[in-house]
């Protein structure tokens, strides 16, 4: 924590305490998203704040009654500092994300309008677009309900979707994709499921357990990794944006990508979807996998052609 962070928090803590005489340090810490030790330090400093040049006659008074706090003579700071543009935009985007995930509640919608107005953020500066996403409303219903669900899910290494019994925890919107954090009851471990790889959801009558306080950010952590080299054309360069930790080098009028994966099957899916915009340089097993898939697919088209 820097002095600037501490000072910014103190300018918010003062009006919060003036509105709530007799609040406790713990309550203030919760409201400020700070530790009780930080609030205690803030109060010790505030006792020396005011106009020191006037010889101590005009200082803020911090009165402690047990663990309860009362501030006096802090009238210059009775209102909080206006949120910065960055803070206001983040409040708006965070609330808009929740609205996009669910049917908006009147209270949240009107709260958002008041925050925009108070922060001086014009309506047309930041605008949100909500897209209907397959499964999203069903997952919201599941989270609002109290039971575990059977999730049909296409894993990166699975040949076809497989049914898992999961205890749903929370939805996360991350880099253009919705994820469901949940406990996989068979594996007895937390898992992250991409909603666009879900192929079915069925509620069960098994009750849900508590949601852990800390959930990891969805990220790809390979266990048994192989190094893959692809050459992508300009049209196929989007591939770089759906992979993590890619080393990218210009190569002729395209790019060479080097990255690790725990699933050649998953990379083969990507290369096929690139429809010619991506070519496997290594490993040979992946080259062969892609060649086999393309030939097998061609065979189905040839068969249909000769049928017709």
């Amino acid at each position, binding site marked *: 924590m820097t002095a600037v962070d501490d000072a910014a928090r103190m300018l918010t803590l003062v009006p919060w305490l003036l509105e709530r005489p007799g609040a406790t340090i713990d309550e203030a810490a919760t409201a400020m998203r700070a530790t009780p030790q930080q609030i205690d330090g803030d109060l010790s400093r505030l006792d020396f*704040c005011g106009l020191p040049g006037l010889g101590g006659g005009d200082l803020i008074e911090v009165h402690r009654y047990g663990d309860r706090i009362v501030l006096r003579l802090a009238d210059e700071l009775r209102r909080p500092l206006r949120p910065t543009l960055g*803070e206001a935009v983040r*409040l708006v985007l965070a609330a808009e994300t929740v609205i996009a995930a669910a049917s908006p509640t009147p209270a949240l919608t009107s709260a958002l309008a008041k925050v925009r107005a108070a922060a001086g953020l014009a309506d047309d500066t930041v605008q949100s677009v909500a897209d209907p996403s397959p499964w999203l409303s069903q997952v919201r219903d599941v989270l609002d309900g109290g039971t575990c669900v059977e999730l049909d899910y296409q894993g990166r290494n699975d040949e076809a979707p497989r049914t898992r019994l999961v205890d749903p*925890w929370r939805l996360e919107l991350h880099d253009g994709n919705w994820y469901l954090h949940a406990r996989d009851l068979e594996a007895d471990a937390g898992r992250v499921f991409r909603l666009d790889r879900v192929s079915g959801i069925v509620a069960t009558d098994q009750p849900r357990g508590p949601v852990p306080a800390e959930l990891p950010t969805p990220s790809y952590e390979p266990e048994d990794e192989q190094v893959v080299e692809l050459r992508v054309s300009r049209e196929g360069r989007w591939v770089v944006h759906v992979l993590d930790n890619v080393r990218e080098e210009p190569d002729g009028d395209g790019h060479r990508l080097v990255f690790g994966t725990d699933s050649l099957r998953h990379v083969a899916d990507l290369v096929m979807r690139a*429809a010619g915009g991506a070519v496997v340089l290594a490993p040979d097993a992946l080259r062969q996998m892609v*060649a086999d898939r393309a030939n097998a697919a061609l065979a189905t088209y040839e068969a249909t052609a000769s049928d017709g």
Partner: protein
Amino acid sequence: MGDRAERLVNLTIAFLEARRPMTLTDLRAKTGYYRQADAEAGRRMFERDKDALRSMGIPLRTVPAPGDTGDVGYALDRREYELAEIDLTVEEMSALAVAVGAITDRDLARGLAKVAAVAPDPQPTTADAAVTSSLPSGVDPLVAAIEDRQAVSFRYAPSAGDVAQRTIDPWRIAWRRGRAYVIGRDHERDAQRVFRLDRIEGIIRPVGQAGAFERPEGIDVEAATSRPGPPPVVATLVVDRRHRWLVERAGGATIEEEGNQDRLEVTASLDAVVELACELGDRGRVVSPPEAVEATRAALAAIASAHRGGS
């Protein structure tokens, strides 16, 4: 004389209390700070504190001092400093607190605490925050430029193509599926363009004067942030039931079920249909329109030929 956080709070109080702009000399007298034997050291310390106050969002203005001294004064207008009346109800504050409760972001937490300071306490709730998201970085300079109507310049890496320097009149921030975009007029192309914030590389620099352009009304944000492309085609695919979700993900709807093979219809660009059909491989195939079948066959042949033999 206390620590720096204490000094920054005192400086804020001194500015709020003052009825007129204050020079460094005034501040020395009023606060007792910046009175080092080396006057230059005191001035440098004040400069750093002044920058710190501004970085906290305190709207400190620089104005000419009274008289002909050539000195500058600093003024803080209470109306610009204070959070405006917001009057959130208990229900609104509770909804806001739960909504953003699961999102970890320092600026978000600060903004919420400021609003909450003068709002009713949220109702205690057992409801878990059900949704979380990462928030974009780099928004602040763009929002400031939009509000100031000032051009900005940055390096941009498009999804296909090369990294290049772009200069735009920023009009609006769009937020869609957890991604932030800026929509504006690209100077070089003299036309509306949209940029993803996470593809902007390095810093965003303001260019030229504030108030340099008017922001048009009625921008179609949804269209601007949609994948541009040729008009869509209606394609029919036949797919193994276990893999039907791949087509449904692309917006496909089942029109006929037949054994383990389902017939689905999807409306998408020809390129998107070909990409989908290639990913399906032998798990399904596109059967109409003929140009989609032909383009898929050609793409598959190109993939097969590019992957023939060892590397």
